[in-house]
């Protein structure tokens, strides 16, 4: 008996210690209903049936699955990806109870606590607390694959904005979903995107009608919750002519000993004069200091700037995941369309990141800007990989790329792999890259003013990343700044 108590105590201590090294690690115990383990046509049919999908979508999934069987895993990135057994995974889980809520007060207290631990931005907390006049942010929580709470739906609906989980949208707006699903990222685009198209669990659908400026920032928090559940989020944002939307995606994840695959797809379709700002703060569980556990984040994000003068701006702060493989891209097809990519990628311990963007200039007078800040610490590897491509018909293209790397310590790696392919003489393409370490002078100066070493490093790193951080909406920027500091703890000294 005593022995048993001692054992329990030790386990508790160990658990607490683990939590301490991953500040926002936690688990919640909502019951899950699993799809059968493994992947087959039956799994795909199970998922589709479970979600009550129409036949066309089932057929689309099956087409994706069959294509995936013939594809090869991606191997060109500068990443060491352990072999993934795609049959040793569950492809579907959802909370058993699916509350329908009139207001957030009725939300499961467990989920409410989860929100709090997630560190939902201050403005949002005010909204959640019912503070009068608080700036509104709509939250669509993708909680363990299935959307369980959507707020501010009414106000959005008054503006004509559709903001739904993708499963709901399939039922309510089948024509819209069918028209745009896979139109930006074709099923066969790559191995992971193809897998997603077969087994995507849930995600978000956004439609902003012509001429509408979305009255609030749209925000989604992702969680990975159930054991061994691959996450296959699918997001589709359609901005009709002259519309505007700012979309925030942030995530943190519970501790896991086993690797978890996360292969999301985000598609953005921008019509004439539409503008979409997509901001991400990514903090999936990175694994422990020795690199055990941690999420594999293999994401395909792409925007089609289809209409003239459309604009899509990607901003990302990537601090989490054991392995990140991610290239938010823009196809600049509409005349005068604009693509932007602002990125901070921070790796520590044994993390690996291979991230960047692709700007494909098809239309005349298209412009793109790329600003990438890579920070490597510990024994991590951090790669910027980017493509700027100008097709023969694209007149007067402008691109500017700035790509800076900062190394903390001599055990990490920092790499830059830019591809520039230009087929039109009127293009003006400029690319600059630098690599540096934190200067001793800067560090000493900050410490002489009273900052301890970690605070000084955090300060300097935030300065290094400032150009990108300032692109984020205010509340996100604050969170991202904290995150950079936290992610570097213990990396210097």
């Amino acid at each position, binding site marked *: 008996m005593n022995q048993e108590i001692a054992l329990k105590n030790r386990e508790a201590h160990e658990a607490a210690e683990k939590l301490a090294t991953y500040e926002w690690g936690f688990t919640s115990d909502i019951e899950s209903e699993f799809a059968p383990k493994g992947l087959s046509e039956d799994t795909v049919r199970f998922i589709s049936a479970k979600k009550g999908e129409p036949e066309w979508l089932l057929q689309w999934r099956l087409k994706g699955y069959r294509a995936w069987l013939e594809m090869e895993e991606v191997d060109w990135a*500068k990443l060491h990806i352990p072999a993934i057994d795609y049959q040793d995974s569950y492809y579907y889980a959802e909370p058993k109870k699916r509350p329908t809520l009139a207001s957030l007060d009725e939300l499961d207290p467990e989920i409410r606590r989860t929100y709090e631990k997630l560190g939902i931005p201050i403005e949002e907390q005010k909204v959640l607390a019912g503070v009068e006049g608080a700036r509104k942010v709509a939250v669509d929580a993708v909680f363990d694959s299935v959307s369980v709470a959507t707020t501010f739906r009414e106000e959005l609906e008054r503006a004509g904005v559709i903001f739904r989980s993708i499963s709901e949208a399939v039922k309510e707006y089948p024509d819209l979903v069918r028209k745009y699903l896979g139109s930006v990222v074709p099923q066969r685009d790559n191995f992971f995107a193809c897998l997603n198209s077969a087994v995507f669990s849930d995600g978000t659908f956004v439609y902003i009608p012509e001429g509408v400026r979305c009255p609030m920032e749209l925000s989604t928090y992702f969680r990975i919750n159930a054991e061994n559940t691959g996450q296959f989020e699918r997001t589709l944002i359609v901005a009709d002519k002259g519309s505007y939307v700012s979309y925030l995606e942030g995530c943190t994840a519970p501790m896991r000993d086993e690797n978890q695959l996360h292969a999301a797809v985000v598609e953005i379709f921008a019509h004439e004069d539409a503008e979409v700002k997509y901001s991400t703060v990514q903090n999936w569980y990175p694994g422990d200091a020795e690199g055990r556990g941690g999420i594999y984040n293999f994401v395909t994000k792409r925007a089609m700037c289809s209409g003239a003068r459309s604009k899509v701006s990607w901003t990302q702060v990537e601090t989490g995941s054991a392995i990140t493989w991610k290239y938010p891209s823009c196809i600049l097809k509409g005349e005068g369309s604009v693509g932007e990519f602002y990125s901070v990628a921070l790796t520590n311990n044994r993390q690996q990141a291979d991230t960047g963007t692709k700007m494909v200039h098809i239309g005349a007078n298209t412009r793109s800007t790329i600003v990438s800040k890579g920070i490597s610490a510990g024994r991590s590897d951090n790669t910027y990989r980017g493509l700027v491509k*100008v097709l*023969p018909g694209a007149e007067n293209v402008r691109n500017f790329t700035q790509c800076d*790397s900062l*190394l*903390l*310590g*001599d*055990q*990490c*790696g*920092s*790499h*830059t*792999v*830019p*591809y*520039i*392919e*230009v*087929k*039109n*003489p*009127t*293009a*003006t*393409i*400029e*690319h*600059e*890259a*630098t*690599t*540096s*370490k934190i200067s001793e002078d800067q560090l000493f100066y900050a410490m002489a003013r009273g900052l301890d070493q970690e605070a000084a490093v955090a300060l300097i790193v935030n300065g290094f990343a400032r150009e990108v951080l300032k692109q984020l909406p205010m509340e996100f920027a604050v969170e991202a700044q904290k995150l950079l500091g936290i992610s570097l703890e213990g990396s210097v000294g």
Partner: protein
Amino acid sequence: MTAPFPTRKAEAWRYADLDALKSVWDELPGAETITLAKGEARQQVWIGDGSPVGVRTVQVELAAGASIDIFALNTAPQYGRVELDVAMHEGAHFALHAANIGGGKATQEIVTAVRHLEPNGTSRQTVRSVLAGTATGSYLGKVAVARHAQKTDGEQSVKAMLLDRGATANCKPELEIYADDVKCAHGASVGELDPDQLFYALSRGLDPASAKALLLEGFVLQLWDEVADEAQREALIEASRAALRSVVA
């Protein structure tokens, strides 16, 4: 050549003209080697011999404190490739000054892997491409800094000028860095002749073709400033001028 024939999947061959390569593959000699002893210094000048397909593969090994300056002019009318693998030891210096000048259907490429294996090395790669017709000019350059190769200073400067619709410039200035106290930078730009410069030259009385040629000379000939041997420098200047004349015409 006994090595297996490359495919486009291989990074170093992604922009290559493999059909042209096939035509010479069997006769290709293996890689040349240049080995410089401790403290040795050398300049090396390569000018294409005018044959339609030219492939030069060179392995350079620089011992501590050794220094090499390579000047390469790539003007092969069909397919020209200069590929360098450079292994650098403590305090070694490597400089590449190279130009692709191509018109018609030429494919020209400069491919480098500069490996800083030990501390205090410096590398400078300067590549200029002038491309007309439907020519393709590429630079695939990698600077790799090994763990503990501290105080490495590596620079890549890549500029390409496209003269016609249909010409293509590719560049991939890659960095692979495993040491923290390094200075590695690269800059790349692609564009056409600067219209302000062109107008300035025209306003001084140069006709459009001469103005273009003059500006392009300014763009390319700087590469050869540091050639010590006057005869070699003149040869590079003359060959560059001739190549520019033929692509502008």
